[in-house]
């Protein structure tokens, strides 16, 4: 049992912080940022090579950098940061000691060692098989081994999180239900367990095959199982960054969810309807029926899309309600105009919601539609989509949280507050543009994972249009802009941790109110007390819906224009 000596009280927030949890959160977050830097640098190399006029790297280096980029940012950066979020959402938010800190450290080291092993395998040059490692293209056994170790470490982290929830419940460190943010983190952790189990099912045999112990792996079966890991792993990101959105709305505005019931149900939809979503990646593969594809991408109703559309209203809606309560009630949008746009935690949060919804969400549903997939499969539209979701959605939300969390946990002032103000705009808009240009080039047929769209030394060439070349060039420019934004973030975080001045005064934000105890509330006093009408958010949601409808049907029109296929 831990004693009170193992805790400190956060001077900014009043949270009771368990010291071992504090240390683990810091180390996981810092490691995440280091891998963001490494993966980001590989990403710049990739974008500079795909800029036809620059064409930076030779082919072998390009495919190596692309493999490392995918692994380091899509997996390592996101999952390390998510482990930090899990510990934050359990131990700190529930005021509870972290379960088995020693096991949590074991998980940390497994993840780190795994990430290093896979990076070495890739940089050695014999495992440039891309992040997806489709068979029968074979990587060295340690490429798979590193990913497996990383995944086992992450699994340990998930169980430490679950254990902490159990302890908090048993030791009654909170009353009633867990906070919405913790609930969202729980959803992320449950999806993570499923994801990692699936990963083991496919990566262990693939490693054995690479070692020569298994003769053959079916290529379609590989993809079906691999994507049950690959697609679900992105749902961990979504659930985690939406939990972060709710956390930031609460931290920045004291916002309450419009309705606990609606927001929690929307999270539950993720668990129930995203799990087997690998079919999105198999829409133009041989050997699978249309019934299978249509049902498994949509479950007949797109209930996971519904979940995201609900959060798209309830997160900004919670902010609007909180702002209106403070008196920003003029017109439709005073609450938004008077928001703290100079605070990177807010601007990152706001851009993350808008870019994730408009760019990532709409494009994702479009390309996940069985027939529409024919006109985008494996074009650079696909990376365009997931840069919108994972970079401008997840990564930007995590950055926004870090602007609040790092000064609070380390009790230090940001070293470059002036640059920090601009950082979310540089990074968000830069990467948002990069995603848009990739999607644009993809609609013109530019392939993804391709070293040279000028087809140097190919027997038969193809001339992409000027527009395609222009967009790949603009993608390079936008990626540089995003890269500068990313560099400023990393500089700010590392600088603050290493050389930041200790905080002298408490944060300007009012101290977080003490959690009200719900036990005394009678049923007659309910009535969404904190909720006001949210006309501004509703209007924005309708704008989103119109954009969604137009874009969806425009793509059916494109499809109708190509050769009849049956």
């Amino acid at each position, binding site marked *: 049992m831990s004693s009170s000596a193992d805790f400190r009280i956060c001077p900014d927030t009043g949270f009771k912080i368990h010291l071992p949890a504090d240390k683990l959160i810091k180390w996981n977050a810092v490691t995440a940022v280091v891998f963001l830097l490494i993966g980001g640098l590989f990403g710049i190399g990739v974008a500079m090579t795909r800029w036809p006029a620059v064409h930076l790297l030779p082919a072998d280096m390009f495919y190596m950098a692309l493999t490392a980029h995918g692994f380091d940012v899509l997996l390592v950066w996101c999952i390390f940061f998510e482990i930090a979020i899990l510990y934050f959402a359990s131990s700190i938010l529930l005021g509870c000691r972290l379960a088995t800190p020693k096991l949590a450290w074991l998980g940390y080291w497994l993840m780190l060692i795994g990430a290093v092993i896979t990076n070495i395998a890739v940089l050695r040059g014999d495992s440039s098989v891309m992040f997806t490692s*489709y068979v029968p293209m074979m990587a060295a056994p340690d490429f798979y081994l590193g990913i497996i170790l990383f995944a086992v470490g992450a699994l340990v982290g998930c169980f430490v999180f679950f254990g902490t929830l159990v302890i908090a419940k048993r030791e009654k460190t909170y009353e*009633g*239900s867990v*906070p919405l943010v913790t609930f969202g983190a729980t959803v992320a952790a449950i999806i993570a367990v499923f994801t990692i189990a699936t990963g083991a099912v496919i990566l262990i045999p693939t490693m054995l095959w690479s070692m020569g112990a298994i003769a053959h792996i079916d290529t379609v079966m590989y993809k079906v199982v691999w994507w049950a890991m690959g697609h679900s792993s992105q749902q961990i990101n979504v659930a985690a960054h939406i939990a972060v959105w709710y956390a930031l709305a609460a931290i920045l505005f004291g*916002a309450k969810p419009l309705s606990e019931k609606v927001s929690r149900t929307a999270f539950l939809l993720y668990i129930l309807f995203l799990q087997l979503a690998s079919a999105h990646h198999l829409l133009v593969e041989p050997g699978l029926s249309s019934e299978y594809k249509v049902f498994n991408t949509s479950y007949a*109703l797109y209930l996971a899309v519904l979940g995201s559309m609900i959060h798209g209203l309830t997160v900004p809606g919670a902010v609007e309600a909180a702002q209106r309560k403070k008196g920003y009630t003029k017109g439709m949008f005073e609450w938004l105009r008077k928001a703290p746009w100079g605070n990177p935690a807010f601007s990152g949060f706001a851009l993350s919601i808008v870019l994730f919804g408009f760019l990532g969400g709409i494009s994702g549903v479009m390309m996940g539609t069985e027939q529409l997939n024919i006109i985008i499969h494996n074009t650079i539209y696909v990376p365009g989509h997931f840069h919108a979701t994972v970079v401008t959605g997840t990564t930007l939300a995590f950055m926004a949280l870090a602007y609040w969390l790092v000064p609070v946990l380390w009790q230090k002032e940001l070293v470059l507050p002036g640059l920090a103000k601009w950082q979310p705009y540089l990074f968000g808009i830069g990467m948002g543009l990069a995603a848009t240009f990739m999607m644009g080039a993809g609609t013109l047929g530019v392939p993804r994972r391709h070293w040279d769209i000028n087809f140097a030394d190919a027997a038969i060439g193809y001339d992409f249009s000027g527009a395609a070349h222009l967009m790949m060039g603009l993608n390079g420019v936008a990626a540089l802009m995003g890269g500068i934004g990313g560099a400023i973030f990393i500089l700010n975080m590392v600088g603050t941790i290493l050389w930041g001045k200790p905080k002298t005064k408490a944060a300007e934000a009012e101290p977080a109110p003490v959690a009200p105890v719900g036990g005394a509330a009678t049923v007659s006093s309910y009535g969404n007390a904190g909720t006001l009408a949210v006309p501004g958010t509703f209007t924005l949601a309708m704008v989103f819906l119109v954009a969604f409808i137009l874009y969806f049907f425009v793509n059916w029109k494109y499809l109708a224009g190509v050769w009849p296929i049956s």
Partner: protein
Amino acid sequence: MSIFPPAQRIWWKEPIERSEILWVTIALVWCLVLFFMMPYWHLYGDQNLANEAYKIKPEVFAERTEAMAEKYTVREEGDTGIPVVHPPAGSDIYMLARLWEWWPVLELEKNQSYRLHLSSLDWQHGFSLLPENINIQVHPDYEMVITITPNKSGEFTVVCNEFCGIGHHTMTGKIHVVDK
């Protein structure tokens, strides 16, 4: 606040605000539309994959492709002398993927339908027909059959859009569509 336990302990009995209910309803209807577009297009649209596929050994697929080429080659093209095959309208036609080419070049007639067989002899490849932007994944050991009806004449290029090693960018092929 979302970072604290719900203020109302019995939160699941709280009524839901009107605009939230309205949005959930609208979104639900839209999600149904999203779903129904897929079966609708199967019934009334012209671009659907037939899902006809067979397990096949690479050497068998290569034999069939070569048999077609032997029978219907009309000329050779380019520096590499790749055969240009003009199969009869309505017939079964083959294009094989291997490191790093699409073989052979096909010459098709406009507005005629063909049963196109696709398979790979080695790794996975991506059949990407440009500038139409029709994209099909090609696997080894699987033969996918789709019926295509080129409705525009001209020269179409097939590029590979699934990463297949260092020569990936040189993997190209061609389909000519001629007026009858």
